[in-house]
């Protein structure tokens, strides 16, 4: 099953400062009460956005008009920790985000994002800081992420970005939609099942 190839992502960015941003913050559990992912983007960071309403300076980045239309989020350490809800990357993607660039990610969030073609790439903490500062000073600046070359470039600045080889290959070749791949050689899957004693009920010699 072929999916879209994602090798380059270009667009404006939105800085979302802070470590350990958990998925309950990204999308509170009450919005998971639906049998589809439709409309999740309307509730992205809903509780903290409500809390930060008011003066422009303290406004939540997702409500700040200068970041409207951003397609890249800049984050710090351990982004997406907590619950395994795919609703978190789904909400970001449906809002218009196509890549998350940060210091590090929780594994489940990273995997869930990859499964839906949302690129999560890492950069050194000082580079993330630099990018955030530049974007805050100049929100219209466009970032170019080249997953193959491993670079993030913008006017007057460039830094290396990284993602594990499997994720890079999956995104750039369009193999991030894994089900087809996993179904390709089902006989081999069956063979593994057959040799696992707990699958065959511990019959005969273990």
């Amino acid at each position: 099953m072929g999916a879209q190839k994602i090798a380059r992502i270009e667009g404006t960015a939105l800085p979302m400062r802070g470590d350990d941003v958990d998925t309950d913050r990204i999308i509170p559990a009450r919005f998971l009460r639906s049998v589809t992912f439709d409309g999740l983007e309307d509730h992205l960071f809903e509780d903290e956005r409500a809390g930060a309403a008011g003066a422009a300076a303290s406004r939540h980045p997702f409500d700040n008009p200068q970041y409207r239309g951003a397609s890249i989020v800049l984050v710090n350490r351990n982004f997406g920790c907590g619950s395994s809800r795919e609703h978190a990357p789904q909400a970001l993607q449906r809002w218009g985000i196509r890549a998350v660039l940060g210091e590090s990610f929780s594994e489940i969030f990273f995997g869930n994002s990859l499964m839906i073609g949302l690129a999560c790439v890492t950069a050194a903490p000082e580079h993330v800081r630099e990018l955030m500062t530049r974007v805050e000073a100049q929100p219209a600046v466009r970032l170019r992420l080249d997953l193959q070359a491993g670079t993030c470039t913008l006017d007057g600045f460039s830094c290396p970005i990284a993602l594990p080889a499997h994720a890079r290959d999956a995104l750039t070749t369009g193999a991030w939609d894994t089900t087809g791949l996993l179904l390709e050689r089902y006989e081999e899957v069956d063979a593994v099942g057959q040799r696992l004693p707990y699958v065959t009920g511990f019959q005969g010699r273990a």
Partner: protein
Amino acid sequence: MGKTLLQKVWDLHTVRTLPTGQTQLFIGLHLVHEVTSPQAFDALRARGWRVARTDRTFATVDHIVPTRERARPFLDLLAEDMIASLERNCREFGIRLAGLDDSRQGIVHVIGPELGLTQPGMTIACGDSHTSTHGAFGAVALGIGTSQVRDVLASQCLAMEPMKVRRIRVTGLLSPGVYAKDVILSIINRLGVGGGVGYAYEYAGDTIERMSMDERMTICNMSIEGGARVGYVNPDETTFQYLKGRPFAPEGEAFDRARAWWQAIASDRDARYDDDVVLRAGEQAPVVTWGVNPGQSVPVTGRVPTERAAGSDAKAVADALGYMGFKGGEPVAGMKIDVAFIGSCTNSRLSDLREAARIVRGHRVAPHVNALVVPGSASVKRAAEQEGLDQIFRDAGFEWRGAGCSMCLGMNPDKLVGPQVCASSSNRNFKGRQGSPTGRTLLMSPAMVAAAAVAGEITDVRGLVAEQVEA
């Protein structure tokens, strides 16, 4: 050079290396619940796929079920829709379901073990991050997202990257009033909420070896709060005795063959670890979280940190203190609570309820506190009622509810209101986690929650345990 349990299980379940370099891993048990599965079933329908191994798949309902009024259809139409769609999906795809009225219903991580579905040496997947719980049996248990649920349903496989293994050895005797929950909160505090990223945690050492399966589940359950997707304990006699006679456990000679296989799956003595950590349990005190992640905790005898002392974490500490409304330097003991919640897949098994009941017996919940006990499964509930635990809780002024996730997360009618402070035996104190955008959660052991309910404030449960010994 020997192998770890993780390596052995990984090798046995490897189908092939995918073109992306990931491992195609066979999943031995897939547990399904109502919240993370509907979109996955829709994807199967859209592509005309079947469920690959219905014999390795089991479903229940837990996250959104009301724990008080369970008559159908639910008043909450969204919840009704989710339950009804799981029922429909299970019927259509031929999956076994312990539904709302089933005697086996309960939190997915409580019922897997108690039914004997969870066994050593398995790979287990579930669309829930606390799947790590099942590692207590020496299984490799992975929390996954909805697209991966789709993968496992369709192919019985996951595309996975290998993990490193960190052994965490806990040694020494726990004092009365100190529990597995305190141990795991200390581990997370020490290694950090992101410290386990890329690792599986192998819990070892004499303290862990002495623990019951219930306690080992509490430990493994919170691995993910330390960033480790997988946590496990090597299977031993305690594991085998627990499994014997469970509905899905092998019987008779098959059990003996299983036992031999299970023993062999444990980490070898000379296994190599990517990292090794030692924790002394003798010095362990009950732990309470004061902040907005499970790593922000102190012993109950301690004080909330000050921003100034936090160094590089100053910003995170200031943010957490601001949200919680606490002053840096304040002692945690004596903090007023509004709600006491005993439940969740971390601490809602029979032994948890027994410990909490021991503290509560003969006391009354403080007048300003709302207290509730939510058993982890219908079977825990029945067993507790047979022992009369429900009566002890009721007499003290606790509500006694039906099984479900309840106030662990804000998806069902059980929620905090406004900025209420909740002493909770659950696993996450994230902002808004318990259903109120300004609600505040203090994580602790069920016995500590019971003590706080009675005192109306955070209090060192060791004082009450000592009182009982003298009485």
